[in-house]
């Protein structure tokens, strides 16, 4: 091997070693940016929070329904809410109150991680409620559980907002077969008073 070849070989080795070191440093700087979709969900959640902040009306008594697994029914809970002006914002307020959980120790209907992608109230009284898949992942599994969750939402909305007659649940903007493998979401849900435990 000539001296010139040896020098070239040495330079090549140094370049390779430098590249390896640089790659190593780069690899340690790799971070995963939140996806655009996730960013949209955060934005929508903030909109929900904005619905609460826009509530300037007087405090009024709201009726919420939370699951009671022992009875397999919903328990009524009264709570003061300063209602927003529009029905759509009021729908968001009810959903946020359900996400907040019961003040009387009943089970939670919607997990705190619930991300409401969108709410739309049609003129015929149908609420289109668009949930994220993350919401489904955090639901308590089972037929009874999903049934309680759905009717907690439907009955609470209908009890507080007279314009709400029925609820259609979507996931990620799409019609889906089931909530999380059990509750049939192919049709709209109408309020079912039989799901509520009678007051003793």
């Amino acid at each position, binding site marked *: 091997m000539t001296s010139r070849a040896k020098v070239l070989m040495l330079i090549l080795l140094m370049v390779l070693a430098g590249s390896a070191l640089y790659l190593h440093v780069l690899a340690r700087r790799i971070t995963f940016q939140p996806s655009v979709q996730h960013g949209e969900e955060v934005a929508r959640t903030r909109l929900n929070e904005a619905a609460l902040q826009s509530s300037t009306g007087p405090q009024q008594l709201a009726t919420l329904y939370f699951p009671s*697994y*022992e009875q*397999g029914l919903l328990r009524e809970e009264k709570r003061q809410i300063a209602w927003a002006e529009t029905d759509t914002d009021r729908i968001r307020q009810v959903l946020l109150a359900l996400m907040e959980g019961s003040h009387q120790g009943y*089970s939670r209907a919607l997990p705190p991680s619930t991300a409401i992608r969108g709410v739309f109230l049609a003129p015929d009284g149908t609420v289109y409620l668009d949930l994220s898949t993350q919401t489904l992942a955090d639901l*308590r*599994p*089972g*037929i*009874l*559980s999903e*049934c309680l969750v*759905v009717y907690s939402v439907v009955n609470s909305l209908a009890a507080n907002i007279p314009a709400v007659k*029925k609820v259609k649940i979507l996931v990620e903007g799409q019609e889906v*077969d*089931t909530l999380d*493998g*059990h*509750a*049939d*979401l*192919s*049709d*709209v*849900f*109408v309020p079912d008073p039989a799901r509520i435990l009678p007051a003793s």
Partner: protein
Amino acid sequence: MNSLTRLLRRLAGPSRALPVTFLLVMGVLFWPTRALRSDNFVIYMPAARAIIPLETIDQVKYLPVISVLNGLGKVDALQEKRDTLKIWFGEAVIELRLDDKQVQVNKTRLTLAQPVRRPTGQWLVPVSFLTAALPHITHETVEYQVGTNRIFIGDVKPTSFTVRLDQLATGARVTVQFTDKVTIHTAASNGKWYLYLGPRPIEPLEQTFRFQDPYVSEMQFDDQDGLPKLILTPTVSGLNFYPTLAEGGKVLLADVLKPSPVAPPQPAAAGEPVTAGAPPVPGAEAVSALPAGPPLPAVVLDAAHGGSDSGARGRDGVLEKDVVAQLVARVRLALLAAGKYRVVLTRVGDVNLAFEQRESAANLHYPRAFLSFHAGDLGTTTPRVVVSSYQASRPPGPGDNPEPTPFLIPWTRVYRTHLNQSRQLAQALQQKLAEIPGMAVDQPGGAPARALRSVDAPAVAIEIGSLTPDADSGVLTDADFQQQIASAIAAGLQAWQGGAPGP
């Protein structure tokens, strides 16, 4: 090397040979070594049996250790660290270490044939764990024939059998000589005949018998679902099948004959004759072979979830899909023992089926009843069971006919034709389940359960619980508990049939 380079250049062009090589190398490095789950492993015990899903990794069979122990009894506690798992099971303390062949049971150190694995968060042990560790854990004898997917623990004496094939004038006769008495129940599916051999465990000398015969090509033993059975494959379609028990149930004579206008020959001195009610048509779905008389009504058992859909998960790692599969196997045995039903399963093995597949599997059989089994979060009360029939998410509107005409019923509304019977069935099952000591049973109700919507039969969902990390769900995998549920369901079906006419 030159030829490889030429090949690469031919494939991708000279300028892209390097990237292609890089991709090939990466492909080899990251090629998945883990095979998909294929079948089950059955643990036979004196009063119970457990069906454990089997994983194959690098051609080695592995079992989920928690499922194995829950099949044997109840795991008391778990302590999982990064690379170790400590299990308290009865008086035994078992310590596993990831990628280590050494296992410690109390103070005894044991060596397995292959190391412990945890490919997807689930701790897996090789089958050799059963023979090496279980005697120390259960203090029972363990019998295992290497290569098989079954093991016998304790005082279990499995039956065995030999097989012979004889030519007849118009067909062939398969003679199966058992070492002990068996009972048979026949069915047909996918062009094969199934001979269920009763509840006793069976250890075959060979798994598959192949014949060079114009009528019968193969007979295979299978007990992957915990039900020992022989599966006969005819060489051609259009043959008739006449199974008969003789010598008090120790000999099975299975005649495969060409169709004939005259009555089939009845074997002389047949101890317990069981003949085919209708010749099964290979290729047709599950044409049952039954005792003489009208065909038995079908009951469809639907084990929810499966495959990648595990369903609910308990505190000790118990999965809903496994609990309901075990429960369905016991209910099936209980119904077959009653001798009044033919049982159809929507899910056989650990597979994830769509609702449409389950419904079509059920509706093909015009079943008398459809039972969908679930295990879910029912709060803190356990054991508890909730029996539900389908209830629509909205009542029928003015434009909806509450009693649909028999023609052109949408599949999404077919449940309506069976609403009353479904409610009666739920009521009957609830009454029998309430008789189980210690069981909390809710009043039967309605739920918009998707699994029941498009089933053309009286249909109910049976949800046991509570399978949740917040409750002790150990009882749900208890063999006695599951057996009590199975017996109650068989009794409930019987009570309901007595009070309600069939479709």
